[in-house]
Every structure is written in C-alpha cells, then in structure tokens.
C-alpha cells in the first residue's frame, strides 16, 4: 500500500506524541494558516544571536502538519542558525521533489527523522501540510533576526 510511504511509523509517532509542543517565551511569533485545509500553527523562535535555543509551537491540523512541527522542533532546537537554514533548504528540496528524490545516507545525516517525509512529496496537496511549520519557522526566524539586527544597530 502506497499509503505507508506517506504515513511512516515515525510520522504517526510524532503525531501522537509531539515533542516540544506548547508556547514558551520567544523573540518572534508568527501565525501561519494553510488556506486549502485550515491547518494552523503559531510558532515562536528564541535565538541568542548564534543558537536557536527554543522553538515552541501550538497548532491544529492533520498528522502530517503536526508531526512536521514536532520533528522540526527536535531537529532544529540547539542548532546554530546557519546549520538550521541548511537543513531547512534541504528539507524544502526533498519536499518539492515530487517523489523523485530518494534520500541517501548523506541526506539522512542532515535531515535525520525528517527523511520520513520523503513519501509525502508524492502528494502535492500534502506537501503544504509538511511545510507549514517550516515556513512558519523561516518567517519567525527572519523576524527574530531583524529584531536582533535592529537592537545591535
């Protein structure tokens, strides 16, 4: 069944047991909505000028979007900003590959659990679900950075 390629065990596990969920203190907050299905996420980024010290979130939506936020939290918290951005870019590439990118070991090393989303990229309507929290994170980070720059300026 093709379905298992989307709903990997790991995704279902993150969905049922989300990591780092809940809103905590942050430097920037964004609210993103997927208009095609109503999935929503509120996400906060805490950034000390070097490391992403926390990414907290609250949201509602399907297993893919919710598991996405959980995996994002697990993967990016504690990372240096540049590294996090590299991970995000690679994840985006994977998701836009329409199922044509087979994750290899190098990719697995970077994306860790997030490679489980490879199967989702075959379902155009769901790619947006998978990317919801990643886009929110990108946006919040840009805001946090802007703030940081303004403060140092």
């Amino acid at each position, binding site marked *: *069944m093709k*379905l298992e390629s989307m709903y990997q065990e790991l995704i279902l596990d993150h969905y049922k047991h989300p990591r780092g969920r809940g809103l905590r203190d942050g430097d920037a907050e964004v609210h993103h909505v997927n208009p095609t299905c109503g999935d929503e996420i509120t996400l906060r980024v805490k950034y000390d000028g070097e490391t992403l010290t926390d990414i907290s979130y609250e949201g509602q939506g399907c297993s893919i979007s919710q598991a996405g936020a959980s995996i994002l939290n697990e993967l990016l918290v504690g990372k240096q900003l540049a590294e996090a951005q590299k991970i995000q870019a690679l994840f985006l590439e994977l998701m836009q590959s329409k199922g044509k990118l087979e994750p290899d070991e190098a990719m697995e090393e970077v994306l860790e659990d997030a490679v489980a989303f490879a199967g989702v990229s075959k379902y155009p309507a769901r790619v947006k679900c998978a990317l919801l929290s990643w886009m929110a994170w990108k946006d919040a980070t840009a805001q946090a950075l802007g703030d940081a720059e303004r403060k140092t300026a």
Partner: protein
Amino acid sequence: MTQLPGLLDTEAIRKDFPLLDRVVHDGKKIVYLDNAATSQKPRQVLDALNEYYEQHNANVHRGVHVLAEEATALYEGARDKVAAFINAPSRNEVIFTKNASESLNLVANMLGWADEPYRVDSETEIAITEMEHHSNIVPWQLLSQRTGAKLKWFGLTDDGRLDLSNIEEVITEKTKIVSFTLVSNIMGTVNPVEAIVRRAQDVGALVLIDASQAAPHMPLDVQALGADFVAFTGHKMCGPTGIGVLWGRQELLEDLPPFLGGGEMIETVSMHSSTYAPAPHKFEAGTPPIAQAVGLGAAVDYLTAIGMDKIAAHEHAITEYAIKRLLEVPDLRIIGPTTAEDRGAAISFVLGDIHPHDVGQVLDEQGIAVRVGHHCARPVCLRYGIPATTRASFYLYSSPAEVDALVVGLENVRKFFG
C-alpha cells in the same frame, strides 16, 4: 444489492458518465462522493460541447452568417431551457455568468451602485447566515466595507439548522437585502424559505437565494420560492465548468445598474456616453460562455428527462441509508442534521480525533473520493468548534454500494490510525 424505495436505476445511469469508469491507485474503480464540489458529466453534455465546436462555433449575436445564426440560436436556446427548468416567468430574466460566485457578486455590486430604493449604503443593513458558502459571504463583506452598510447574520442551532428565533432583529426595516443558501453545501441543511421571504417582504428587503446546492438535486421553481434573485452554478448539475446562472425579476433587472461593461451589453456607445441593452444582455459583457451555455442546456435536458422529483427521491433514499450506516461507525459524529428530513445529500462528519485530511487521504487510497476541509464554509467549522470536516456527497448516480464502500473505508481509516 441493497434495495431502497425511490432509487433510480443507477446501473443504467452510470453508463452515461464516462468518468465513473475511471480506475485509480492500481485497479480500484473510483467511488466518487465529492458531488457537492462538482458533478461528473454525462456523455450527452460532452456530445453537445463537441457538436457545438465542430459544427456551429461562432461568436453570437452580431453576425449574419449561418454559423453566427446557429451559434446564437443554440446559445439563446440554452437560455430557454434554463428558464423552463427553473420556471422563470420570462427567458429574459436568465443571465449567464461564469459561476455562482459571479452571480452572487453581481447582485452585491448592482445594489452598491443602485439608486434608491435599492441602494445599499451606510444607513442600511444586509442579512446573511452563518452557514453560507464563502461566495455568499465575502461579496457582502466587501459591499459592507465599501458602503458602510451593516452586515448581520442568522446563527445556527446545535443540530445544524438556521436559528430564526431572532429573525426580527436580523431582518429589520433597514435591511435592503437578505441572501441565504437554499441548501447548505457543508451540512446539507435545507432552509425554510417561506419564513425568511415573508419577513423580508414585510420590511421591503430584496431576497437572493443561493441555489447552488439545490438546482442539481431538486425541482426548482423560482416563482414558488418568491425570491427576487436566484443564483446557481453549472458544473454541479452535470454541466460544464465556466458557467453560472443568475435569475432576477424583470423589473429589478431593468432598474438596476450594470456590473461589467463591454461588448454585447450595450445598446449604443459613443465617446460621450453609452446606453445599455435590455436584460439579460445588459449583464452579459463580452463574449459569453457560449459552448458552456450549450452544455448546460444539454445538462438541463438530461436531468429533466430523468425527472428532478425522481432525482430528489433517489437522493433522499441514499441520504437516509448513508446516515444510518455512518452512524454505525464508532466515534463518527455528523455535523448537521442527523435525519434525512429537510436535508440534501451532502453529509459532513468528524471521525474521533482523526483529522479530516488524514481521513480523506486514507479513503483516497481505497479509491473513495470525498472532500475534506472547511468546504468554503469556515464559519460553520468555527461555530461547531472543529477545524474541518470530511464530507461525502451523493448524486443521481450514487448507489447504496458506494455508501457501503465508504463505511468499509472508514473502518480502515480507524484501523490505520488506531
């Protein structure tokens, strides 16, 4: 096979619809339960489109050559058919638009630019309901923002019906227009037209009925409804995409200002000023959806030959059966009326805490096409405190076997996420 009283011979009818033979996901024959979003098209409609393009295609109205005369006769003939289908007093009251959304926007815009007594401005009010499709919400929000008119809403009862208990507060002496859906696209609710129309008439407000989910499924008689305008859309009633209808009372169409300007809708144009053609042409700027009107005419013929009352009876039987079977699924909660009375064939539900997106995905894998989301009726989701629903919606070709397939599919969904 399940036998229900009132069922149509779906085996015969399904032969008319090529898409219903479609096979998806490695060999599964499609179970198409997304009819409230759009209907499939019978061979007869596709034939009419092809014949139009291959034999008669020309621009309408302004030609003396034989193709232009044929195309005009076909286009205007489609207007006659639609007029008869909705029992319009005059064919000139039938305006072709691109979809129901344009029809609804057309009325909102006419009223914004109208003279007294129709003019919507900051002294006046607009009334709609909480179960409207976004296409019958946003035009009024825009009109309200742009004119300062106050937008008022009928609320909903817990069982998915309109709450008319405060009708005298919602529709007041200030109300210029009341716009509501005859059948809810998300809950299937059939609304009580008479009570609303009576109150509107008492205060001198115009009434616009959104019949997008009614025209495909039941006999529609604009005179019996007593409304001033009725809007619906072709693609949900076996017709092509790209065509909608607005019916309006002749005197109103004469008095109200045009919306889009352009070719076909004018009487005479000079650099100084222009005068407008009489309705319906006044409201049909530019080259109309000619082939699509012809296709809609063929769809109306097709539905009429089967009989709208028979189609309504069929859907009633299917809906009754589907509600019964769905309520057997553990953790399934129907959003909207839970009996088949005063209700159409769109059934929304939630399944435990499995997100509708996930429900739809797992059903799709089994070849079952349902729609998930807020169905362009987000206020309903907010009202019932849910993010979205899964909606199964039936039509004249839907069979009890397809209901059974849905129920089995939902069991599989539960197992998958169990």
